[in-house]
């Protein structure tokens, strides 16, 4: 059937319709006796926007893996597309952050005291901490806006919504890998040369990625319901940063400087951000020995990752059908 013929047919209907001979509802059929639900069942219709089962959801998500990857890569390049220096900001931003913290905490406030292996280790210690914490921080902060800033996409196209927060944490992983280049240069500059222990960074990052993805998923659901979180979360994240020992040795600061009770020190050391930071420092800095790590550190790293990762995924899936509401 050519387009032209369709068109003439359509116009014919318009001409005849005012005589009441149009056919927009079906002639009588046995279907008339069926209720909507029965009719839907007969023709294999499903309830619009119903949430798929968890297994089905994972399957759908897997089938969109190319989209998730392409989306995170696209977001990463779009991030600085309006800046003149462009992609250079990928490395410049974390570096400038580290410089500010070095000046304030390292020099003005004397945070270098108690750095494992002496004060000359402070810069690698600080930069590792800043980069690793930034990984979690930006995953959380961008996670809050994962749905709300992509509402256009959510309302226009159908895909499992978890693709958005997941691609955000992948985007941050790619960002972190850029930062790692800077980190390696700094480490070499401070006499920390590659050893086998550097490989510890890989499983540590894996656990952290799992944790961050879970956090992004949780924040995405909460942020879609309460947009105010986008304003609140920077405060929460900053508090978390200070409590995790990004720019000072946590153990020394709490025990010697503040005289905090033992349980508080344990809690601070077992918090996921501190665990992942300390593991990376353990990997990269020779003088940061196992003695500075909390007990059962790998159990903690993997446990936090699995708990938050899986918990966050289920938590996000539970509201899948409501994200378009905005």
């Amino acid at each position, binding site marked *: 059937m050519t387009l032209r013929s369709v068109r003439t047919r359509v116009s014919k209907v318009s001409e005849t319709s005012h005589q009441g001979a149009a*056919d927009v509802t079906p002639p009588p059929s046995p279907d008339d006796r069926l209720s*909507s639900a029965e009719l839907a069942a007969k023709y294999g219709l499903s309830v*619009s926007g119903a949430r798929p089962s968890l297994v089905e959801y994972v399957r759908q998500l897997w089938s969109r893996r190319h989209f998730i990857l*392409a989306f995170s890569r696209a977001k990463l390049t779009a991030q600085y597309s309006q800046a003149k220096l462009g992609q250079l900001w990928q490395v410049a931003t974390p570096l400038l952050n580290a410089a500010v913290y070095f000046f304030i905490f390292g020099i003005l406030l004397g945070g270098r005291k108690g750095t494992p292996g002496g004060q000359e280790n402070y810069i690698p210690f600080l930069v590792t901490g800043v980069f690793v914490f930034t990984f979690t921080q930006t995953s959380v902060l961008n996670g809050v806006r994962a749905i709300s800033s992509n509402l256009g996409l959510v309302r226009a196209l159908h*895909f499992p919504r978890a693709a958005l927060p997941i691609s955000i944490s992948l985007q941050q992983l790619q960002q972190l890998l850029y930062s790692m280049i800077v980190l390696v240069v700094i480490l070499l500059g401070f006499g920390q040369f590659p050893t086998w222990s550097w490989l510890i960074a890989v499983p540590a990052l894996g656990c952290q990625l799992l944790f961050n993805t879970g956090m992004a998923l949780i924040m995405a659901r909460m942020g879609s319901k309460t947009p105010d979180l986008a304003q609140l979360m920077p405060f929460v994240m900053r508090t978390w940063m200070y409590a995790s020992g990004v720019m000072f040795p946590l153990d020394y600061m709490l025990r010697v400087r503040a005289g905090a009770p033992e349980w508080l020190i344990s809690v601070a050391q077992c918090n996921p951000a501190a665990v992942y930071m300390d593991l990376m420092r353990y990997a990269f800095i020779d003088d940061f020995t196992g003695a500075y790590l909390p007990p059962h550190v790998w159990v903690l790293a993997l446990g936090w990752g699995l708990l938050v990762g899986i918990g966050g995924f289920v938590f996000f899936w539970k509201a899948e059908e409501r994200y*378009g*509401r905005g």
Partner: protein
Amino acid sequence: MAVAEETERGEPAAETAGRPAEPWVPTVIAEDLDIVYRVYGGSKGKGSATAALNRIVRRKPGGGVREIHAVKGVSFTAYRGQAIGLIGSNGSGKSTLLKAIAGLLPAESGKVYSDGQPSLLGVNAAMMSDLTGERNVILGGLAMGMSREEIQARYQGIVDFSGIQDKGDFITLPMRTYSSGMAARLRFSIAAAKQHDVLMIDEALATGDKKFQKRSEARIRELRKEAGTVFLVSHNNKSIRDTCERVLWLEKGKLVQDGPTEEVLKEYEKFTGK
């Protein structure tokens, strides 16, 4: 609605406009659909971080929630191969109804059943404005569930159809540099590249120029022929006449009339005083 049903039942179908000859197969069933928006006491806008804290602290739990009953008790059944126009004055609930059919807005009561996954195409459905048109085509395709090979095969077709290359090499520019019409055209082209079971178009045709409107109307007819159902929201009675054979008229969230295009439009034009 009742009026429309009575007049048509029993009349043997003389014409089969755009509808395949097979028996009537329902694709969308809406049953006594009610949709309620909840708006939190007008506390809108993004102020500074401290202002947000202030609002959270001061907001009384449960207070200041306003309910907006956008769609009230709408029932209809759409059939395969139909193109259905949605008309009504601004704020009558047309777009809300489409969102509910697409499964994007949960219903307060009643149900919507649909065949496959209805896709909604709206003017505000912005894609990523910082990315080039090229990347948006690829991302949009991937998001709709097309494979990389499929996108590669259809890429040129999508770009040609949108016609944004007519004025120079725009596809390699970020989408924020596009005019609203160009962006709408590209979005429509991306969405129309895939065969949808149920496609809903919200005013998308109004933004394009004459030439593009013609092309997209032809594409809508094609999509319809591919056994899908098309919903079209428009304030342009002419484009409704050109593309749809059935019209739902909504006013204040209620279905006023459901019937053949010409019949409903005549009443509607009387109502709007045109």
